[in-house]
């Protein structure tokens, strides 16, 4: 049982907690304590030193918006943001109740008339922005993967296609999201002219910008993974004269899966970075816009709030990466020495 939990922890990359579990189980105490100190202890010390230096240096720097905030001010803003969130939720609920009453009354007065519910028009909270960013990054990431994986498989199987596409890939890969943004904005504005859009234009622009930057690592790694499949496996497919689809799903994809997931992991990381920049520049809703709004707002708390956003962005990026690492290790199982 213990070993099972530890196995899961290892896959998820939480090696740090392994000694804790062993300690709880009462295994060789001294050694586990030493291990614990070497991981959690040292990380704790690093964090302490970081916070200390920050608290020391930050007040020394004066800006137009006052001092650079230290840890205490940032902590204050975390609380203030959470308070705001609770207030907003309350307001929203209250609005829903009064609005429902209003509509029902109107309907009673005038049965024939179509009465519409008005939407609550409060400011999006910090949590709303996080949610928007997450939805956008996953949409863009999904879009990129849907193109990158099939195209990568075809490139990996076909050297001609690979060398045909290679120059394009090499040129577009290093392009920064900032450069894509204006073009994507113009194109989407020109093409996407639905009168009552189901998806917001800003959302589409951000998602497409994310895909344009996230597509390359997945594409390259998939192609590499497919191209380096053990020749014996391909020979098996040839001897059995497998149908193309069987070959892809039974042999090519499983064999290349570890590579594909390496690519997807990099793509998601790139996508997350790109998204924040895109939101900030084009002021599309999300965490990037939150940062920009606070910057424009220019109140004495703005810098502290931006720092909260920075930590949030970092933390979410870290969690996304952990998820991908876990998936990667999971698909690499049963692969013997192949890939990974």
């Amino acid at each position, binding site marked *: 049982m213990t070993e099972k939990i530890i196995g899961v922890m290892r896959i998820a990359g939480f090696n740090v907690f392994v000694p804790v579990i062993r300690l709880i189980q009462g295994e060789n105490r001294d050694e586990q304590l030493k291990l614990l100190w070497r991981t959690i202890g040292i990380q704790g010390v690093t964090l302490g030193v970081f916070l200390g230096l920050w608290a020391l240096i930050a007040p020394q720097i004066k800006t137009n918006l006052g001092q650079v905030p230290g840890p205490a001010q940032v902590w204050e803003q975390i609380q203030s943001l959470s308070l705001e969130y609770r207030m907003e939720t309350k307001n929203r609920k209250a609005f829903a109740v009064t609005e429902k009453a209003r509509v029902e009354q109107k309907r009673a007065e005038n049965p024939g008339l179509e009465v519409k519910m008005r939407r609550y028009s409060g400011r999006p909270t910090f949590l709303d922005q996080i949610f928007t960013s997450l939805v956008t990054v996953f949409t863009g990431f999904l879009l990129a993967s849907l193109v990158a994986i099939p195209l990568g498989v075809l490139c990996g199987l076909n050297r001609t296609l690979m060398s045909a596409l290679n120059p394009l890939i090499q040129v577009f890969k290093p392009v920064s999201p900032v450069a894509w943004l204006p073009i994507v904005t113009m194109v989407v504005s020109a093409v996407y002219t639905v009168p009552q859009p189901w998806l917001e234009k800003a959302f589409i622009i951000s998602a497409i910008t994310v895909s344009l930057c996230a597509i390359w690592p997945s594409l390259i790694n998939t192609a590499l993974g497919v191209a380096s499949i*053990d020749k*014996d*496996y391909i*020979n*098996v497919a*040839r*001897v*059995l*004269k*497998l149908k193309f689809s*069987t070959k892809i799903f*039974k*042999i090519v994809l*499983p*064999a290349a899966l570890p590579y594909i997931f390496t690519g997807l992991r990099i793509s998601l990381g790139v996508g997350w970075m790109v998204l924040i920049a895109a939101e900030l520049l084009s002021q599309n809703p999300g965490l990037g816009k939150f940062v920009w709004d606070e910057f424009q707002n220019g109140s004495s708390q703005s810098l502290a709030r931006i720092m909260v956003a920075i930590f949030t962005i970092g933390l979410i990026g870290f969690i996304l990466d952990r998820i991908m690492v876990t998936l990667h290790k999971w698909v690499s199982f*049963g*692969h*013997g020495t*192949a890939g990974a």
Partner: protein
Amino acid sequence: MIEKPYLHFSGISKIFTDPKGEPYPAVEGFELRVAKGEFVSIIGHSGCGKSTVLMMTAGLSEVVIGGIFLDDKLIDEAGPDRAVVFQSPSLLPWLSALDNVLLGVNRVYPHAAKETRLDLCKYYLNKVGLGKDIHKKAADLSNGMKQRVGIARAFALKPKLLLLDEPFGMLDSLTRADLQEVLLEVWNTEKITALMVTHDVDEAIFLSDRVVMMTSGPSACVGDILPISFARPRHKAQVMEQTSYYQYREHLIRFLEDGKDKKAAHGMVSSIGDGASHF
């Protein structure tokens, strides 16, 4: 000589391009006739072109000059009528033993009922002694077990021709002896024409009806053929009691030793600078 061969190599040649871009004639004028139901082994020095011949027969590598005919048809592509057992057990590690066999069976009997197909797979897996491990992932099987599955996979295709490229080369000698018995047992009931490449003189004698000795490359071809006249079914202990066993052994080893000398002599000649003169 066999009058109407089931499998015929009509003096085939294979020319590779070596890393310097020069043509390298690995095999030249390889002529061999194999009767239906015969078990033929090919032995020869490392790098002489045994695998090349086998891969051409499988259709995985192109014949440059001449042709290989199976049942009067020219071999021009790979297909499930020529099952291959590779040296490294090339099972798909993410599939179970059963699914590995099923992959081929599904391909060869697409219209059979699912039950029938499963039974067929299980029958062969049972025969190679894998009865209870059939649901294990191939990655979790030992090398010996994997090669058992490889053999089951090949026989389950009911091929016209069985091609084995040093199938037991990677195994320890105990496992190897076991698997030779397993292979022979299955083969005895099916009598599928088989072509096996091996380094192991004893293995060749024990399993084959004829042993083909290839000369050393470049331009390797058939150097000598030794018919093995032990009755079937064979058992290792009985076979090794016969005096002819040691005569066969002697014959094969002498051929290989001679080849080595020639190879050394040839190496000396080319090092002097007269690269064009071999033999």
